[in-house]
């Protein structure tokens, strides 16, 4: 039992780090449920602020969900074929393309947004619509979809599977939808959840691109913190958590689902 003191020390450190991260979040949630933040929980618990957030920002919530779903659809349509090409034709050009794809993640969101505004700002109708924000989100989330799908495609011998399908008479469309996509489904699903989560939570680009009529949840959150009672801002956080945590849990669950299959593949 020599290892016991070390184990206790490690446990204590882990708990400390967790507390450091979690306590502020818990406080924020409590603040959103308290009658008066300055008095604390003793002032009584209420759902008033959550209700207020709903009445003020329900439109933002629906807009965010709409954009997130559209973003998933767009990244699926764009990202899966891109990942397929990258997996099937590894070379210098595709490698470069893969790097370029990650640029919108590396470059500050504000810069990306500014570029979009400079370039498309003239088209008033487009500039003012939610589609403008969607473009920003797609730029930002596409690499996550591509990487996720590519990782799975690279792990299976896609070229040989396709050759086998072709030898049996399958044309390109049959091969792509009958063999490629089903065998990349784990990567596609993980990518879709990732994109959904990122889109719902995206702030930098959206904050620059939004108009008073196209506020997403995170922009509304900034808005609420800046201009309303602290309790309302905190209640907003709760709403945000309710939306985002199921997505995060789904992603974790998916990652666990996948690992036994991966392990089996390695065994061969």
């Amino acid at each position, binding site marked *: 039992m020599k290892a016991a003191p070390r184990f206790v020390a490690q446990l204590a450190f882990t708990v400390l780090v967790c507390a450091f991260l979690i306590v502020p979040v818990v406080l924020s949630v409590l603040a959103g449920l308290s009658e008066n933040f300055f008095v604390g929980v003793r002032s009584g618990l209420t759902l008033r602020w959550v209700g207020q957030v709903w009445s003020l920002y329900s439109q933002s919530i629906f807009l965010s969900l709409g954009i997130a779903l559209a973003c998933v659809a767009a990244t699926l349509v764009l990202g899966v074929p891109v990942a397929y090409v990258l997996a099937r034709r590894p070379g210098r050009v595709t490698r470069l393309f893969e790097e370029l794809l990650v640029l919108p993640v590396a470059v500050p969101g504000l810069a990306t947004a500014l570029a979009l505004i400079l370039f498309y700002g003239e088209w008033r109708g487009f500039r003012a619509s939610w589609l403008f924000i969607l473009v920003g989100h797609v730029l930002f989330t596409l690499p996550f979809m591509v990487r996720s799908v590519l990782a799975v495609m690279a792990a299976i011998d896609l070229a040989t599977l396709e050759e*086998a*399908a072709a*030898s049996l*008479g*399958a044309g390109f469309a*049959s091969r792509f939808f009958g063999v490629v996509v089903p065998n990349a489904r784990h990567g596609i699903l993980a990518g879709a959840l990732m994109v959904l989560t990122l889109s719902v939570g995206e702030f930098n680009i959206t904050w620059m691109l939004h108009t008073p009529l196209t506020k997403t949840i995170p922009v509304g959150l900034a808005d609420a913190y800046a201009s309303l009672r602290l309790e309302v801002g905190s209640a907003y956080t709760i709403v945000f958590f309710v939306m985002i945590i199921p997505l995060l849990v789904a992603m974790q669950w998916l990652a666990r689902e996948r690992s036994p299959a991966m392990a*089996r*593949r390695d065994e*061969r």
Partner: protein
Amino acid sequence: MSDSAAGVRLARCAKTFADGTRALAPLDLEIRAGETLVFLGPSGCGKTTLLRIIAGLAQPDAGGRVFFGHDDVTARPIERRNVGMVFQSYALFPNMTVGENVAYGLKVRRIGAVERRRQASRLLDMMHLTGLGERRVDQLSGGQRQRVALARALAVEPRVLLLDEPLTALDAKLRENLRIDIDRLLRSLGITVVYVTHDQGEAMALGDRIAVMSQGRVEQIGTPQEIYYRPASAFVADFIGTMNRLRGECGDGWLRLPAGALRLPAHAAASDHVMFRPQDARLVAPDVGTLTGRVASAFFLGNMTRVVVELDGDQAIVVDTVERRAFEHGDPVGVDVDADALLIL
């Protein structure tokens, strides 16, 4: 199925890769309908490239043509050539059950679900996989997977069956079993088969004819017996089985060595070397042998003993013997070689 079998003819098929490497020298070749032709050679000899050209997965250089029977299929992609293909890595679809894998080619051909299922279970029975149709692919052993791959390739009644090192990924015992099954299957189906391997045992056992390849060329094409007993080149002689090679001085129709002298065959009376198989030499008493030497090492292999003899004058040969005696290092021995088994290349 034999009605649909077609011969394959290659006319001036060459292959140069984009980087300028010559993978295949221009080749004319005919594979007869119903025949099993094995392409045998070391890795990088061009045998897989040749298979891919026949399959339609690679195009020959301009001017090369591929015929299935009388059809020129050169311009047709693989999906319209009606071939069956079996890969070293099985290439089964992980997203489908065993039965769905076997029926995939039929599904692509828009054959109804009931008929597909009937065909799939018939083929699984034929491959000794009865009742495994509902299994997932990853629940099968390597040998079972390759049987499924074979069933899948045969389900579409291909004109030509192409096998690319199908047994290489399996361990020795399974390989032997599956090889025997494949042999029986191919003979009963009467289908045209092109089989690629680097394993001469497989080639000998399965091939009606063997094409030995080296550096993008077919060195020799013939029945296993022809290839083994009458190799056309030194490469073939060395690549297939074990071959002894002795060098010496030629004089009056004899090859003179420090260890003795061998009479050269009349057609090659001026050669400075001879070759022969280990089983074409016999160990005899030291005083009566044509050649003399000492035992360098001996390996008892069960059905025979393989003896390495260090001949007087520093050349070594291998002799196979069924004698039931223990050979000791340094034992003096004599060696006789069958005169008509001598090869000169």
